């Protein structure tokens, strides 16, 4: 308890540290938001709760790491790993959809959870088999900016990563809003039967949506490996965050997903500083519980009012 109090006091003894925590939180939160954005799409459109979300993120990280560090003279620049991971994971998403997901779309929640959990385990094991269990990362040849007398550190690699995450998120938002396919996806999400009557090939839309989700995850992973570290079994870290963010934001609230992702990132950084880094994941799970309790209470109130 003394440790927690003295940690809490640091926030007042060194006020500039708050700025650092917020910046760190926004940087990591942007990637939580990106992973959650894809999950929100799949959940909202196909009603599939994808437990392999984080594993797609890690797979994208390995695509970027392998293509930029393990191909000798054919290695590409790490930044090109982001579009490459997007494309490769798009393909992976399409295959997974055809083999697994299209069989569980209209099944019960338990079936879809079980199927995607299987995909998660398979993905992690394949990555482990191919690349081993070592922690991997990519060192971008960029310095770190030290601001406010060295209190705030801004690694340029992370700034680039967050910038790319922002561009990708904006691109997906614009695509969903203005493209015909984006409109078809939204129509399918609202009422698949009506969408089918209007001539939309919903199976193709589902395949596209799931592939797009995997591709977004892949790009997020490619950004993560430039700024943090990855390991085949780290998928759960991002899956949990994605579920927390989508639950907190609510389905269909894509701007809310971005805000919740950033908020979770900042909250975790504060929690890690005050309570200890070992409680970082517990903070996410606790937040999930609180949100669920509040939402259930709201639903109950609405039900009582209707009665």
């Amino acid at each position, binding site marked *: 308890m003394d*440790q927690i109090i003295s*940690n809490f006091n*640091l926030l007042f*003894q*060194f006020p500039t*540290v708050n700025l*650092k*925590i917020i910046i*760190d939180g926004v940087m*990591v939160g942007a990637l939580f938001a990106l992973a959650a954005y894809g999950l929100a799409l799949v959940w909202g459109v196909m009603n599939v709760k994808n437990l392999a979300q984080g594993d797609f993120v890690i797979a994208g990280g390995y695509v970027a790491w392998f293509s930029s560090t393990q191909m000798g003279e054919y290695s590409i620049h790490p930044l090109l790993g982001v579009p490459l991971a997007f494309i490769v994971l798009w393909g992976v998403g399409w295959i997974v959809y055809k083999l697994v997901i299209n069989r569980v779309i209209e099944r019960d929640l338990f079936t879809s959870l079980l199927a995607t959990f299987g995909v998660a385990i398979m993905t992690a*094991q394949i990555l*482990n*088999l191919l690349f*081993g*269990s*070592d*922690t991997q*990362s990519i*060192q971008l040849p960029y310095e*770190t900016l*030290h601001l406010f007398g*060295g*209190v705030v*550190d801004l*690694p340029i690699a992370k700034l680039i990563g967050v910038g790319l995450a922002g561009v990708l998120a904006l691109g997906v938002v614009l695509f969903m809003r203005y493209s015909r396919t984006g409109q078809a996806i939204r129509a399918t999400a609202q009422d698949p039967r009506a969408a089918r009557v209007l001539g939309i090939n919903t199976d193709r839309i589902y395949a596209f949506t799931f592939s797009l989700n995997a591709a977004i995850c892949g790009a997020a992973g490619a950004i*993560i490996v430039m700024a*943090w*570290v*990855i*390991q*085949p*079994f*780290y998928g*759960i*870290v991002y899956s949990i965050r994605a579920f927390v963010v989508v639950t907190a934001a609510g389905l269909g609230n894509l701007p809310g997903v971005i805000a919740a992702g950033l908020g979770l990132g900042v909250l975790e*950084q504060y929690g*890690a*500083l005050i309570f*200890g*880094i*070992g409680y*970082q*994941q517990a903070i996410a799970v606790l937040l999930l519980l609180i949100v669920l309790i509040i939402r259930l209470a709201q639903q109950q109130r609405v039900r009582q009012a209707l009665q």
Partner: protein
Amino acid sequence: MKPLLKWSLSAFAAVGLMAAPQAASAQDCDTIELGAAISLTGKYATNGMHTQNGYEFAIDKIAEAGGVQIGDKCYNFNVTYYDDESKGDRAATLAERLIQQDEVQYMLGPYSSGMTKAIAPVTEKYKIPMIEAEGASRSLFNKGYKYLFAVLSTSEQYLAEAVNLAADVAKENGKDPSEVKLAVAVENDPFSLDIRAGVLEDAAKYDMDVVIDEKLPRDLSDMSAILTKVSLIKPDLLVVSGHSKGAATAVRQIEEQNIQTPMVAMTHCEAADVTGNYGDAANGILCATQWAETLKYEDPIFGTAANFEKEFKEAYPEYQGKTVPYQSAQAAAAVYVFKDAFERAGTLDKDAVRDAIAETDLMTFYGGIKFSDAGNNIAKPMVLRQIQDGQYNVVAPAKFASHDLIYPRK
């Protein structure tokens, strides 16, 4: 036949005849079957492979040197491996299978304290001697096991030397060791918690102030919050232990956050290949090691520690350009202890072999090996290496040091 060709054929035949008895004697050796459940897949796969390579290298070296001599017969080792997938329950099941179905009478240990903890009750139940090389947690050695022996130093010793080193530096700089501020960040697993315990015990001896004492999550990928605290509180020594992910994350983020702590000590530097992955950022880091190729240890099979390093790299070219991990060296030492025990026992009877192992007092390329009643090795110290210009140089304890400590780290 031309004279030159005739001479060549004669010489070839003569060499063949000279070689024939050796080849025959190698074939005449019987086999001693050992069993091992090793992490060949899963989160410990890399270190599992280092362990298996160490076992196989030692088996080949012992065979080259004439095998294991029991009475007037010679034997070579053969290991039946199973993949425990880095899962404790699977490791225990496989140990049962090795003993019950494959009828293995002697075991080599798995990788990690966790796997060893899972297997040890099984080998104990069937009274199967197990020499292990990769389970360092001291909680393995307070359960009264009689058939478990470990060639490595227990984990509480890994980074305790860093505390002694910080105390020595404080004295050299005219400060009292009690003025040293210590930050500890270790993973919440049995191995790292032992390391923490050893560090805190030594810090208490000097009355040092532990200003940060944090536990890292198992899926650590970001420790910026801890390093933020480090940059504010400014400890004199930062100790990190979290397997290779802890080392990788710490080295990367210490550089990014420009952490100026004058001494940083950690485990698993080689496993995380911090010099290869992070270059100059790794310079100055102190790394705990069970063994180093520069240490002055020697035995008749492997030669010096430096010779082991050289021949191991020749046998396994994938280690060229890297530091041979101590996990491979200690695995080789475990096989060597079996050879020594079999020869002293003079029989294949497992209880006699167990007793011979318990009485081991052996100098090896890996260091001295002598087991306490609890089964841990008490004849070999841990050493600290500092990464200096990308090289791992032994700097502590003083009597093993090949280089001076660079302080503060650069």
